[in-house]
């Protein structure tokens, strides 16, 4: 199989302005990936599927990854002029100072595709796409029209991560029930404390559930009280 760099070149030749980036994988698996620009993703996907040499006709795995907002603390070496008295003479000296800077890196939802070729028997080619943020701009183009195998997996990502796939024929929740609000696979998901727990003697779930029931009961009593009035 071609290397990711070669594939990148091929894509850029075929789809002008595709905006493909190589993402290096530091681990020993050597599965480097290509990050696609969502606006050209479908064209790139079509190219990858139909190109005679690449022939990625089999989309094996589609999955989401949640990258929450995170505070990055980095130490930066800054060089700045300092006025200082050296040997009784005031001088301006360039000095390197270490400074800690904090900034919040905006999180995003990422979708990862693993492609193989059944015809050429090579792979995997890893593709990634990122949403703009994790809250309101979570739309990505659906690759289901190109590879049917994405159908259920994209539904699953929609269900568990909340990525909205544009162009998906039937985007509904798949594992959670209709009417469920949250996206459980996100890293900041908080489990509700009112589910039917399986009580075990030492479980913190039990404590939480008890607290929840007590709160409910208190609320009910309060409600009754107002009703009597």
């Amino acid at each position: 199989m071609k290397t990711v760099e070669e594939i990148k070149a091929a894509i850029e030749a075929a789809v002008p302005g595709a905006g493909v980036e190589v993402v290096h994988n530091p681990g020993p698996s050597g599965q480097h990936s290509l990050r696609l620009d969502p606006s050209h993703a479908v064209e790139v996907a079509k190219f990858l599927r139909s190109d005679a040499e690449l022939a990625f006709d089999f989309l094996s795995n589609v999955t989401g990854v949640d990258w929450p907002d995170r505070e990055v603390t980095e130490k930066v070496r800054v060089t700045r002029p300092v006025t200082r008295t050296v040997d009784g003479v005031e001088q301006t000296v360039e000095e390197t100072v270490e400074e800690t800077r904090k900034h919040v890196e905006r999180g995003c939802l990422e979708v990862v595709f693993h492609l193989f070729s059944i015809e050429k028997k090579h792979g995997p080619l890893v593709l990634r796409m990122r949403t703009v943020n994790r809250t309101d701009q979570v739309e990505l183009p659906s690759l289901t029209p190109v590879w049917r195998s994405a159908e259920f997996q994209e539904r699953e990502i929609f269900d568990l991560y909340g990525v909205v796939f544009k162009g998906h024929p039937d985007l509904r929740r798949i594992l959670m029930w209709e009417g469920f609000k949250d996206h459980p696979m996100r890293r900041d998901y908080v489990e509700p404390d009112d589910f039917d727990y399986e009580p075990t003697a030492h479980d913190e779930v039990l404590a939480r559930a008890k607290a929840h029931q007590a709160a409910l009961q208190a609320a009910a009593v309060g409600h009754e009280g107002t009703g009597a009035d």
Partner: protein
Amino acid sequence: MLGEGILKGLAETARNFVGSYVSKERLTTVEYPEQRIAPIEATRDFPFLVYDGKDWDAGLRCVACQICEKECPPKCIFIEKSKDKKPDAVGKQQFYPARFDIDISVCMSCQICVEVCPFDAIKMNTEFELSTTDRFGGLLLDRQQLAKSNEYYHEIHPTEASGVDARLAAERAAAEAKAKAAAEAAAAKAAAAAASSAAKPAGGEA
């Protein structure tokens, strides 16, 4: 195409019908309460705590390091570490589990606790007739219920147990040797120090 496949199938079921009366190979069912299959050595179901010697409380190998509690995938182990130390089977001062509960209604018999235990203190039992009418209390085994003697361990997993014993003995011997060496070294040092201190005043006197 004219029913010979069906006839073949009928012959096959007839053969099995007769075969189930003739051959033990075919009729694999064991009629459980009366008959039992021979115990398989590697079988595992729920964990127990091994103790050495006669007294279960004193002999528990567990030192409440809580690694198993941390590693347990379904989080069914609950350990409270003791505040004080008491001598273990060989007389070394150790922490001990003031409380050690396993909720076997949650346990999934994966034996990861056994693998991560550095002290060979927790092992898998083969006792499976554990049904109880008490859903919560009856399935929460405490320290005493979990404690089983090393002899029992030898009985259910003989090969594994002798391996563990050999390893422990080797470790103990090594530790003893080390301790002995250390003690000897200390003694030698002390002796040397004593000698030198003895020499000093002597020298002073001289």
